[in-house]
Each structure stands twice: as C-alpha cells, then as structure tokens.
C-alpha cells in the first residue's frame, strides 16, 4: 500500500528536482503533441522559442512581459507563504494602473522630473487601497480574503471601464474609449533602443532581492511563515496574525499596483479599457512555479513570459492556435502540482497488514 509521510524537513534539492521534472514532462508532452501533428519538435523549438529571443527586440519584449509577472509574483509568494490567499492581484493591478494613470493625466503637459515618481507612487497607493479592503474585512470581520479580493477584481475592471469611457477619455479621441497618450514626463525610461523593456524590470529584480532578504534574515519573514503553516503555533509563539494579514495584503496590493502603473507608463503609454491580460492571475502560476521563493520568481516569471511569446510565434511560424498557450500553462501547473507531492511527502510502500 502506498503511504505518504510528511517530510520533517524539505530539502532544497528535492524542491528543484521537482520543478525540473515538471518542466521536462511539460516539454516532453509538447514535443509529443507537436510530432503527432506533423511538426519536427526540434525545428519547432528553434522557431518558436529560440528565434524570438535571438534579437534585442525579442529580449526587450520578454523583459517587458515578465516585469508585472515578477513584481506580483514576489508579492504573492510572500503572501501565500503566510497563508493569505490574495487571488485578486489582478484587481489591485488595475486599481494601481488606473490611479497612476489618473495622476499622469492630471499632470499632463507638466514637464518635470517629479511627475514620474508621483505617478508611480499614485499607482502603488491605488493598489494598496485595493489590497487594504480585503485586509480590513478579514481582520475586522474574519471575511474570506479569496472571495473579497476576487470580487474587487471585477469592480476594478468596471471602474476602469467607466473612467476611460467617461472622465479620462481622450478629449480629441473621437469618443473612443481610451485616454490620451501620456506626456513624455510620465513615461518610464526604456532599457534598450528596441522593444519596450523598461526600468520597471530593474525594480522587479530589486523587489525579488528585497523579499528574499525579508524571508531569510528578518524575523518578520519567519513569523509570517509560521503563521501560514500553523495559526495555532503562531498564536502560542505570540505572533500577531493580524499583522501578517495586513502586511501580506498591503504589500501585495502595493506591488500589484506598482506593476499596474508600470504597465501603463512603461508598455502601454495610455489608459485603455484592458490594461492587463490577466497578469494578476498568471502571477499565481509564477509564484507556485517558483515554489514561493521570491528570488526564484525571477526565472519563473521569465519562463511564463516566454510561454506567451512562444505561443505567439507558434501562431506566426506554425499556425498553432492561440489557445495552445493556455493549455501549455495549465499543463505546466498540473505537472508541477502533481509532482510537488514528492517534495512535501516521503512515499513509502508498505504491505497491508
């Protein structure tokens, strides 16, 4: 009989072996699928993965795509460690993009150095407020944060829609639902001459390093982790659960909001009804792919960003429908979750007595 035993200590080697196995299984399944449909897997790989990355443009775009995923993924890895399930990072991102965008538009035409920092601050605050709502409701009324943050995502999306259809609409834009293009003073500097890779990526790296520091060196990180593993243990140790809730959701909100404002000032350059192709949800995959290690979120974010680019080049080069990207991401997550059993538990084969 198969029997699972909790491992007392989780070995880092096991952890990364599992990620490698999940990636290998996903890659293998993709290769098999490709050959079933008559494509040479190696040639296809070259066409859909290597080629888009072989130009500065491609790399730059990859970094741009990975920026929000890493930024939010870092926040979520902290929050999930603490057992706070912030599923509504998407809404916090939109709130941040909207608030930051509104600041940028309010100072339209002002050509000063402080416009951009103010815009970024505004965006982070917007996300922070959106994250504070589920935090407050959880601390005060013990309301489930999963549902509140999820509901608020729809509210944020609709709010953005109201604003770009109305007050923030481009006055010279023939009534089309978009804001005007931001003034140059509110645009994030680019990293390369080609593509849209911007300094937001550097920030995301800093967040990852900072969060790692919090987790490893700071007592707070330990408290949050204990609180996530066992509320009772945390209680006995005298740790403040409410503090964990506040920090998880406020940091999550602020970082997601930052990701949102960076997205509108870095890659889009204006407010449109749709500022995020579900970055907030995809970042959940990123956080799990990184096994909730903030530093590992960086490669995980890059990999998931690459899956989007690869999905597009698969359409361009091979004519594979766009839905394949979602299947790939779903499959990767399935394999990862399926194999993570091997990390957390020791499998024993025992004879039934």
């Amino acid at each position, binding site marked *: 009989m198969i029997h699972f035993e909790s491992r007392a200590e989780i070995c880092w080697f096991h952890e990364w072996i599992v990620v490698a196995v999940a990636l290998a299984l996903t890659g293998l399944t993709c290769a098999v699928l490709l050959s079933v*449909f008559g*494509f040479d897997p190696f040639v296809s790989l070259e066409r859909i993965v290597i080629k888009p990355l072989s130009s500065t443009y491609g790399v730059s775009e990859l970094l*741009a795509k990975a920026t929000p995923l890493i930024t939010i993924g870092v926040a979520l890895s902290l929050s999930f460690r603490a057992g706070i399930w912030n599923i509504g990072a998407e809404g916090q991102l939109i709130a941040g993009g909207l608030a930051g965008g509104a600041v940028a538009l309010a100072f339209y035409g002002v050509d000063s150095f402080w416009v951009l920092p103010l815009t970024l601050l505004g965006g982070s605050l917007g996300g922070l407020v959106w994250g504070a709502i589920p935090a407050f409701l959880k601390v005060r009324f013990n309301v489930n944060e999963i549902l509140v943050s999820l509901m608020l995502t729809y509210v944020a999306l609709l709010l953005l829609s109201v604003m770009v*259809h*109305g007050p923030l*609409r481009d006055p010279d834009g023939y*009534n089309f639902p978009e804001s005007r293009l931001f003034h140059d003073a509110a645009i994030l500097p680019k990293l390369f001459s080609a593509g849209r890779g911007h300094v937001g990526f550097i920030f995301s790296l800093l967040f990852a390093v900072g969060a790692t520091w919090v987790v490893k060196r700071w007592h707070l990180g330990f408290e949050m982790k204990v609180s996530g593993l066992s509320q009772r243990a945390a209680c006995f140790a005298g740790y403040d659960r409410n503090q964990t809730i506040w920090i998880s959701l406020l940091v999550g909100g602020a970082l997601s909001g930052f990701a949102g404002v960076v997205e509108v000032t870095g890659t889009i350059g204006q407010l449109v009804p749709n500022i995020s192709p579900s970055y907030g949800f995809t970042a959940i995959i990123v956080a799990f792919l990184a096994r909730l290690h903030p530093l590992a979120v960086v490669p995980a974010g890059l990999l998931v960003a690459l899956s989007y680019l690869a999905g*597009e080049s698969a359409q361009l080069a091979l004519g594979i*429908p766009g839905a394949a990207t979602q299947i790939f991401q779903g499959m990767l997550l399935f394999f990862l979750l399926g194999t993570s059993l091997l990390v957390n538990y020791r499998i024993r084969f025992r004879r039934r007595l």
Partner: protein
Amino acid sequence: MHKFMMQLRTRVIVSLVAILSFGIVSADAAVKAGFIYVGPVADGGWTYEHDQGRLAIEKAYGDKVTTVFVENVAEGPDAERVIGQMANDGADIIFTTSFGFMNPTIKSAKQFPNVKFEHATGYKKADNVATYSSRFYEGRHVLGLIAGKMTITNTIGYIASFPIPEVVRGINAAYLAAKSVNPNVKFKVIWVSSWFDPGKEADAATALIDQGADILMQHTDSSAPMQIAEKKGMYAFGQASNMAAAGPTAQLTAIIDNWSPYYLERVGALIKGSWASSDTWGGFDTGMVELAPYGKAVPADVRQLADNAKKAIIEGRLHPFTGPINKQDGTSWLKAGETADDGTLLGMGFYVEGIEGSLPSAN
C-alpha cells in the same frame, strides 16, 4: 458513451491537424503580408471576414505572396509586441484589424520604418501607416429602409457595443432611413459594453423583443441575436458577415464587410512598389460594403426600394445624411439639402432628433 468520446477525440484531432497544417507557409516568397486579428478566425463575423480577405490575397497572388496571422490578440499591452514580432519575423505589410490597435500600430511603425502598416477603423496615420475603413452607414441606411417598411410593432431593437462614432453613425443612419419610410418608427437601443459576448447579446435581444421590437439590428459580432430572433419568430439583420446559417428565416439581409478588394489593391501596390500611405473609406461603390441576399420574408416592393437606394448611393445621387437633420437636443445639424462632411461623420458623438435615450457617458 465510450464510442461518443472516441468520436469526439477523432474529430478533435482531425480538426487540430486541419488547423495546424493550415498555417504553414513557404518562406521564399517576395511579399509577406501579416494580419493581426482581435478575435478568433472562426468568430463568424468581423475577424472571419478579414481572414477571407487574407485568403483572397493568397489566391490572387499565388507564390508572389505569403501570409501570416495571429488571432485573439487582446487590445492591450500585448498588441504592440505581437505586431513587432510579426515585423521582426519578416512581414512587409501588416494589417491591424481593430480600433484598439491604433496606438500600438503607430508605435510599431516608428520602430520598423521599412514595414508598411495598415490600420482598420482608426484615425492616426504616418508615412508608413495607412488607414482604412468602410462606409458601413451606407449599408445601415438600406437596413433602416427595410426595417422601417417591415416592422409591424413600429419598434426596432438595436444591440450596440460601445458609443464610438462608428456605432453611433450606424444607429443614426438606420434611424433616419427607417423614419423616412415609416414616421411612427421607434428605436430601442441597448449597449452591452462588449464586441463579443454571446450570452449578453442574447439577453439583450430577448429584452428588446420583450419590449415589443419585432426587428433586431446589431453592432456586436456574435450571431446570438440572430439565433434569438429565429427562435422567437422575429426578424434580424446579420452583422459583418452573412448570418443566414444562424437565422435561415429570421435574416432579412446582412451587411457584409468585404475586405478583399482593398487587401488585393494594397498588397498589389506593395508588390509593384507603388504603396503609399493613404486614408481609404470605401462604401458600396468599392465593393467593401455588400448586402447578403434578401431573406424570403422581404416582399418584392421592399426589395425594389432597397435596391434603388443602394444604386442611388453608388451613383452618388443619395447621401444617407442629407438635411434637414436636427440633433437630438433639437439644434440644427444639417440644413435642407446639405450633406454631412466626412470629418463630422468620423467624430459623430450625438444622436439625431427622434431617437430616445441618451448616449452612455457622453459629456
């Protein structure tokens, strides 16, 4: 049940192979034309018709041209990257087929000055960016005539997407035409805030019929309203594509967006080396706007009326916006005999007199 699942699987695989083998193109052709689609090719409406245009290019120019496309490109941060990837991948001309691609197209055009861009339904041009659209309001005029003649309840239901000039113009054109043949006609408009949400479009269609509409018009892309009209024994007009399959008896006619003439001309110009940035707004006369064959329910006299109007528009004898026309608030817009200029039409943000309700979030 098992047999069914096997069948399902076989069908899925067959279809996958069909989809996959479809996109393969040879690499040694002279001109590479790329298409960015906002929806799936199989949407049966807007994107489907653009893809028909792409296929027409392949058919007409044979090995002088190859085509690529990316479907389901969201109007957001991803659009610019997909356009850029296509340009990087060697496309010589890229058609971006939705309004939301306007700024991404302009920005990409700056990054890739040697690639030609064609943006549908927008208003920003550049040296290597041309714009194109169709005078769908000419089609809406004919639809309005048919609706005005055929309605019994004197109520036309209109399912609209977003209050942008294109949609507002369509409502106004259809209303003025309907009113001209039926002074008692009323329009009821529902905005669904989406181009494509079959469930919501179906709910809106049901609501309009429940409120007494017996003919539906839509400016959204799914065939759900047509299906509802068929189910409830009402009439409707197809949008963007011939939707007779969804409503064999319900469809009176449909506005068909025929992009082929334009795409053939532009790619042809590129092959010859005579491509230049331009602003095209084609109507019935260019073949870019077409009508589907009339449904059985349309009586002979109405067909005659519709055909005459279409002919008059082609010959320049009739402009759907000819004064006297007042705006909804009663102020005069066009004096008797005056016709609307393209600039006003392109930015149309008001209802004409007689339409009830107000435009959403109009300032």
